[in-house]
């Protein structure tokens, strides 16, 4: 089942041109093709597009689909330039292959990076089909045009379907440069197209790595260390081997794996293992981290991220100085599909199939771990039940491969939710000390951010309000820890925005300025009298602030118990501004409505884009309200959804209204940018509602 897509296309001899990932060149006359196949000639001017003689157009979706919608949006771009009707095309997930360029789900980069190359791929096929028709009719190419899967002769009105032209087009040289469509002629880009897999999703068809079922496959579950800092010392599998269905117990990748004929048997076998763990390094606790943050955020960094003017000199003058400390917890990724991977490792080859955001690196790391050449390893990509950055790590696939190699069997690795939550690469918690000086004429004279985090960066040096404040400094610190941390949806922005945008609101109130008017005033300063580098596009920033103010009828005509809060952020080349509305019903607070304005360049799929923004907002809100991971001597306290809490419908806003700033600019990132500003927008709304400033996440509003 898994290899089918690949093998069906093996006869397509497609060569890649170095650089850019854009593939041109074809030779459908493979040695393996029979005469009959030639009659059913396939036109495939590049890896992304195949047209057979019956006119079936198959488009390849090159990037991992983790719920961000690229399996729909990228083929839409191909279909647009190819001039075919969307509802006539078939979309297939591409296998891992260099001819598809960079196959990564991360950094909100798929549409951003591929928009032009993919348009060219589609346009190339269209131009060649027009050439084929023109030659057949003996007319000039300019006398023909392509529409809805046909080439049409302008003079005679005659039509030839793409299928009828496929064989001829396949004999033509691939043009090096082709004209792209005028965006005003777009029929698919910018429209509402539904998730390509909707039908399969709503009928429960197998789509995910977790659904992999292969002959002879064993389910594997692993005994993992109960805390960071611990490693396996010894184990006794006597009881495990008595469990019906358990077939094998192996040691691989530093863990003990139980292999069985069902998930339940594997779990019972795993739970029956008697394990002895030893301390390799000290177990750390959240209280220790907090204590270290507290001392670090009052310490200057040797290498500050940005220094404009002299904040200390301003603070020393003794004018009005405002300080606030913000705290953010560690978070788990908790994709709804827990980690898993299928591996079938043979003597000198391997087949891998499973959820990963980095298929190419996954194959490299598996090859290294198995000592098998990459060329002998295939890797297929299922639809994924969420990513959020967890699957930027290769541990799930490497572990499955090593266990399959050790057990000499095809293996479906299963992580329980508890395994997943205790074996994460966490979003690092952070603490910030924010300090600002307000001048006698009621302007921000100095701004100092000092942040510390469990791992990775805790600030982006040039973020707004940098360039609008004469004295500006950013210091950051990172702890050394044996707890794994890693990218989590909108890395760094997802922590620092809470501090930046909450503090901005505090200053606005302190200065008795409207929070939105205050931002616009600072943007004017950055435009007219910039201090140092301006790290954002002032007009684009302003576009979302103004649009969301208009959408939300900011500050006007609110019911008596409804309060608004504002926050914005520029990340992944996209601008996002939110207004959150909090309703106070007899002292019970609920976020009831969100308005969101986004400037992400041209929108490819309006339905998918709105879904990403709505989703990022609700995802960010869910974590801001409820979620935290804490450690006790290296052990994770929150092991499942009973203690690591998520939003349910009763906590979700009734409305999440999204608008995109109309623009002709090239598309920018969208999977992440709407997440960072939601927590501060809500904190600011809660302040408006209650006069209480929530400076620590999660809010845990229910708690007195």
């Amino acid at each position: 089942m898994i290899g089918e897509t690949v093998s069906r296309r093996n006869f397509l001899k497609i060569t890649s041109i170095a650089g850019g990932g854009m593939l041109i060149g074809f030779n459908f006359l493979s040695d393996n093709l029979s005469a009959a196949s030639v009659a059913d000639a396939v036109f495939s001017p590049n890896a992304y597009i195949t047209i057979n003689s019956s006119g079936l157009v198959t488009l390849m979706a090159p990037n991992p689909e983790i719920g961000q919608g690229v399996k729909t949006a990228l083929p839409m771009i191909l279909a647009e330039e190819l001039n075919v009707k969307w509802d006539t095309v078939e979309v297939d997930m591409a296998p891992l292959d260099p001819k598809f360029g960079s196959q990564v789900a991360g950094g909100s980069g798929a549409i951003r990076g591929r928009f032009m190359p993919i348009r060219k791929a589609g346009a190339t096929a269209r131009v060649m089909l027009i050439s084929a028709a023109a030659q057949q009719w003996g007319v000039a190419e300019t006398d023909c045009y392509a529409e809805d899967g046909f080439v049409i002769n302008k003079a005679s009105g005659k039509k030839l379907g793409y299928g009828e032209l496929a064989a001829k087009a396949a004999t033509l040289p691939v043009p090096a440069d082709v004209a792209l469509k005028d965006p005003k002629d777009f029929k698919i880009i910018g429209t509402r197209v539904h998730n390509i897999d909707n039908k399969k999703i709503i009928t429960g068809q197998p789509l995910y790595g977790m659904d992999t079922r292969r002959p002879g496959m064993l389910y594997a579950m692993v005994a993992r260390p109960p805390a960071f800092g611990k490693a396996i010392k010894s184990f006794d599998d006597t009881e495990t081997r008595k469990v019906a269905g358990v077939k094998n117990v192996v040691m691989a990748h530093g863990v003990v794996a139980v292999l069985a004929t069902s998930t339940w048997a594997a779990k019972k076998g795993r739970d029956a293992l008697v394990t002895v763990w030893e301390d390799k390094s000290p177990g750390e606790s959240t209280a220790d981290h907090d204590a270290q943050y507290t001392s670090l955020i009052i310490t200057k960094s040797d290498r500050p991220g940005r220094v404009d003017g002299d904040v200390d000199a301003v603070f020393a003058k003794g004018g009005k100085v405002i300080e606030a400390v913000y705290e953010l917890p560690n978070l788990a990724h908790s994709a709804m599909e827990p980690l898993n991977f299928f591996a079938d490792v043979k003597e000198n080859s391997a087949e891998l199939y499973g959820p990963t955001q980095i298929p190419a690196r996954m194959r490299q790391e598996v090859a290294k771990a198995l000592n098998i050449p990459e060329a002998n390893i295939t890797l297929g990509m299922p639809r994924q039940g969420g990513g959020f950055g967890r699957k930027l790590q290769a541990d799930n696939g490497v572990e499955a491969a090593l266990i399959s190699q050790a057990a000499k069997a095809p293996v479906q690795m299963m992580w329980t939710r508890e395994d997943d939550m205790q074996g994460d690469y966490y979003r690092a918690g952070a603490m910030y000390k924010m300090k600002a000086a307000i001048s006698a004429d009621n302007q921000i004279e100095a701004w100092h951010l000092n942040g510390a985090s469990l791992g990775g960066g805790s600030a982006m040096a040039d973020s707004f309000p940098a360039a609008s404040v004469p004295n500006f400094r950013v210091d950051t610190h990172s702890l050394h820890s044996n707890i794994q941390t890693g990218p989590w949806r909108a890395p760094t922005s997802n922590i620092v925005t809470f501090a930046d945008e909450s503090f901005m609101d505090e200053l606005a109130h302190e200065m008795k300025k409207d929070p939105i008017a205050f931002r616009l005033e600072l943007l004017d300063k950055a435009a007219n009298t910039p201090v140092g580098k301006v790290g954002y596009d002032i007009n684009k920033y302003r576009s979302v602030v103004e649009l969301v103010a208009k959408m939300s009828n900011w500050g006007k005509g609110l019911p008596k118990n409804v309060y608004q809060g504002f926050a914005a952020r520029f990340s992944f080349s996209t601008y996002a501004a939110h207004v959150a509305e909090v309703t106070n019903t007899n002292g019970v607070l609920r976020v009831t409505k969100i308005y969101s304005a986004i400037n992400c360049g041209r929108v490819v799929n309006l339905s998918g884009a709105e879904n990403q923004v709505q989703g990022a907002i609700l995802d960010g809100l869910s974590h801001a309200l409820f979620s935290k991971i804490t450690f006790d001597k290296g052990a994770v306290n929150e092991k499942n959804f009973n203690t690591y809490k998520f939003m349910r419908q009763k906590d979700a806003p009734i409305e999440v209204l999204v608008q995109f700033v109309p623009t002709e600019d090239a598309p920018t990132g969208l999977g992440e940018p709407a997440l960072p500003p939601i927590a501060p927008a809500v904190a600011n709304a809660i302040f408006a509602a209650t006069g209480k400033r929530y400076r620590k996440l999660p809010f845990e509003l229910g708690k007195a």
Partner: protein
Amino acid sequence: MAKYTLSVNNKAMSVEADEDTPLLWVLRDHLNLVGTKYGCGIAQCGACTVHINGAAVRSCQYPVAAVGAGKVLTIEGLSPTGTHPVQLAWEEMDVPQCGYCQGGQIMAAVALLKTHPNPTDDDIDKLMTNICRCGTHYRIRKAIHLAAGKMTPKAAKV
């Protein structure tokens, strides 16, 4: 190990499993009905929601031995062509992102609409308790209202 004959999607199916095996794993591993998803194993997230005799249950905490003669309905059996009004509403609202939790969400919504054919937002708040990490809550709420409209003649709303 014990032998069970289960009614799943209106078909009699035989399985041999330990009596404490959750129905979830019997469906997924023994019967190859993988539309019912594993998310937490402790009846928190609802990804494993199926119906037994028309009521929504979380199959990860429902031992196979307890099913007895109960009629089990999974997402695969909800309608032969994927055209149950709730499924159609999900498609029309373009609800899914990653999609992993949506089978369970749909089964929960179908059960909700049985007891509340014209649900208020308050009803949805109380009865839709499944987790979605992608944040499709807003579209789910709209899809449930849409499905209610599809299923209930206008007169019923009076």
